[in-house]
């Protein structure tokens, strides 16, 4: 990244872009990596995202939510690519949720029921290596993965996730709820398999 001096020399647009957009390069890279699943594709996505953002900079209102704006561009580029490659398919049925998985439909998390006897504090989570956690995230359907990464890793509020993904806030909530439950189940099953936790209680979806 250039120094503030060179940024100033390059003009106000460049300076603004440095302080508002380029500071999010790590976050955009992580997001691209989670979407694409591979470094080469993530690298291309990051480059294309910032180029697109530079060209469309006049559309961005300085001081607003640059991170979610960049995520929007990145995700749109990704979806266009997978659409071209015919690889993308929505794997979630948001129109007809099962009552048991709707928010509030199962108040007590199955994770709690499965772990309350042997590991109520969930310390088994700390035994799972980063790569396994990442693998579980990357196995989520794209809609859930995007919501979980935006919220739990990047800390975006519901409203910004809704805007970035073009869905109502209620849908964001439901994607987060289901995505987190799927992740918890995957990590729990991995921990049982590895012997980090004994499975006296079976996982039971409500």
């Amino acid at each position: 990244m250039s120094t503030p001096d060179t940024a100033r020399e390059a003009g106000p647009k460049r300076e603004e872009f440095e302080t508002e957009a380029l500071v999010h390069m790590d976050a955009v890279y992580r997001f691209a990596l989670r979407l694409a699943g591979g470094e080469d594709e993530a690298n291309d996505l990051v480059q294309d995202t910032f180029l697109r953002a530079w060209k469309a900079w006049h559309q961005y209102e300085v001081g607003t939510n640059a991170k979610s704006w960049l995520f929007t561009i990145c995700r749109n580029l990704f979806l266009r690519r997978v659409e071209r490659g015919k690889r993308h398919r929505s794997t979630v049925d948001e129109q007809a949720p099962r009552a048991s998985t709707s928010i509030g439909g199962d108040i007590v998390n199955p994770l709690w029921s499965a772990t309350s006897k042997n590991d109520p504090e969930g310390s088994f989570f700390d035994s799972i290596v980063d790569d396994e956690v990442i693998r579980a995230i990357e196995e989520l359907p794209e809609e859930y993965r995007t919501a979980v990464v935006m919220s739990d890793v990047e800390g975006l509020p519901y409203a910004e996730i809704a805007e970035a993904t073009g869905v109502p806030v209620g849908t964001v909530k439901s994607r987060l709820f289901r995505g987190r439950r799927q992740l918890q189940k995957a990590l729990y099953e991995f921990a049982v398999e590895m012997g980090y936790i004994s499975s006296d209680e079976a996982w039971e979806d409500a």
Partner: protein
Amino acid sequence: MIIKTIRRMFGWTPEGKSCEESLRLLQEYMDGELDDLTASQVEKHFRMCKACYPHLDLEKRFRERLRRAGERDRCPEEVRASVLAAIEEVEKAG
């Protein structure tokens, strides 16, 4: 104990929200999406209720694990450099 159980059954506790309501609002509470009043009621409940507090703890641990794993990656220097070079090129081209 019996009075507490009866109160919870009717959805009211002196601590704020009921157990059922607090668990239902757990996700939004942790996401910082509740209004201040509701958030403080839920917070109060989790602080006072021994039965519910572990649920909050478990959820915190899970999210902390996700955040730590997710934040691990950094944009490689060569990608950073190529982004800057590409922007400079477009800038020069006008």
